[in-house]
């Protein structure tokens, strides 16, 4: 089975974010980056499916030169080869045009299964995989907790709301978006890191794919959220903070 995993590189989880003076985006210069967490689970799911059924795992990532580190990490974990869609200015592409770009790149591989995380930790649209399925003419399932191949068909356990689940099956080829936290992630071994250096990374540009970032929706500005409440910050030493909080809990919240 040929499995393509679409992964994204996002600012590291605990990054302090600063808004650019123009208010258009965040300051990127000093940011650390990592793989989008749900995408790490999509890769793990793909690697486990390959272990069960054989085949090939290809990772695909769009972005500037810095995404090479995320691609290398995926190769070190066991992906067989990679596709790097080189684009320096993805922030001016909207969710539809990014999905169009990824769908065109995916079609050059004709995969049996496309996996990706259910949403990104930066923009959080939660749409890329679903739009790709629509554009590629593939059946899809979202919020997958497990993916199995039974008699040449896909059987996916999907998370519904409020603690409910459901199995959905569909023919291959198909696309599935993976829920975060569903598997134990593997670490790259030393051998894996060494091998990754020799694995193929095919580079391709949006122009070569015939894709253009003409946004249908535009991000006008970003800003710090207005606090929904007047938050009272408790200051002082730890003992003083604890004493103040107990005072509030006793006399204002009245729960002690």
């Amino acid at each position: 089975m040929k499995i393509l995993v679409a992964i994204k590189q996002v600012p590291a989880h605990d990054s302090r974010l600063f808004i650019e003076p123009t208010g258009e985006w965040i300051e990127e210069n000093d940011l650390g980056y990592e793989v989008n967490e749900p995408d790490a689970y999509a890769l793990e799911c793909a690697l486990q499916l390959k272990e069960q059924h054989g085949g090939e795992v290809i990772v695909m990532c769009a972005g500037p030169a810095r995404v090479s580190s995320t691609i290398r990490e995926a190769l070190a974990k066991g992906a067989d080869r990679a596709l790097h869609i080189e684009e320096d200015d993805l922030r001016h592409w909207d969710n539809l045009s990014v999905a169009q770009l990824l769908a065109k790149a995916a079609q050059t591989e004709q995969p049996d299964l496309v996996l990706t995380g259910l949403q990104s930790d930066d923009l959080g649209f939660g749409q890329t995989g679903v739009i790709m399925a629509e554009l590629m003419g593939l059946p899809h399932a979202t919020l997958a907790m497990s993916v199995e191949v039974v008699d040449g068909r896909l059987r996916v356990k999907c998370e519904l709301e409020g603690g409910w689940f459901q199995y959905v099956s569909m023919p291959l080829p198909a696309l599935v978006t993976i829920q975060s936290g569903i598997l134990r992630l593997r670490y790259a071994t030393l051998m894996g890191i060494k091998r990754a250096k020799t694995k193929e990374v095919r580079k391709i540009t949006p122009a070569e794919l015939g894709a253009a970032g003409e946004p249908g929706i535009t991000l006008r500005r970003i800003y710090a959220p207005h606090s929904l409440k007047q938050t009272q910050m408790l200051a002082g030493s730890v003992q003083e903070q604890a004493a103040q909080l107990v005072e509030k809990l006793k006399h204002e919240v009245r729960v002690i």
Partner: protein
Amino acid sequence: MSGILVVTEQTAGVWNRMSFETLAAGQQLARTLGKSASAVVFGSETGPLAAELAGYQLERVIALEHELLGSYTADAATGALSWLIAKLEPDVVLFPHTYRVRDFAPCIAARAGHALVSDVTGFHVESGVLVLERLLFQGKLNADYTSSVLGTVFASVQASAFRADTLEPGTAAVESLTPPLVAASIRQQPEPPFRESARAVDLTAAELIVAVGRGIHEEGNIALVAELAEALGAELAASRPICDSGWLPMERQVGSSGQLVSPKLYLAVGISGAIQHLVGMKGSRTIVAINKDASAPIFEVADYGIVGDLFDFVPALIEQVRKAKNG
């Protein structure tokens, strides 16, 4: 049709409550834009639900019925609603940002050649242009989006962003429509939904909740937060990563994929406040947050905040709570 079309959600005749928040958003948007709002309910039998919607201030209610819409599939929902939207050509289509909507609404917008603005928290009009507000970086920043092309605007509305109790009553005409669906075009085969375990802990009934998040670092440290919960007489709860790691059972999870709670006191320990968690607890009467990062989104909903190391603060708090209770 010019105006706003609100897509509602139901399963076997039972509403998803976010349908009403989205209707309220639709009415509010209609007033802002000087347009009218309509609603659609889709399924195999929608009669009583459509009749219920007809009691609100809407231009019309569409009962979109087909036997293939009985058990939800992405393909049937996309086919039926795409057909309706192409027929009506509304200015704006609003969806509730539910798990199910995430499964089909991006297809509908893409099929119409548009980008869906998902998880919208609010809107305003700036020099005649509709601006949709949403969150970035899991709630750390806000963003304003505008549509830069002509045609229908597609948006989904975040849970609890609009209030269902602001819905205006009225009378609307109900219209039944049958979309042209064929069984062969539906590729997903759903099995009946199920629950993993009978839920033993009902966090929704708890008056006091102490919740723990990623900041606790290790499974062994959970005991410290459990001790605080015990000292306060509170239920212990957690954010998703804690339950995913198996450090606490799934039934103690608060958030969009867990339980939605609104206790008297919600004390969040080491929880940064990703939006998926906030939607599950921001209705709590009093929220206290302890976190090492002063810019953590949890502080936006907190009444009292402590910026610091939970491993220093929690033991001090346990001691003082015990003292206060015994004194």
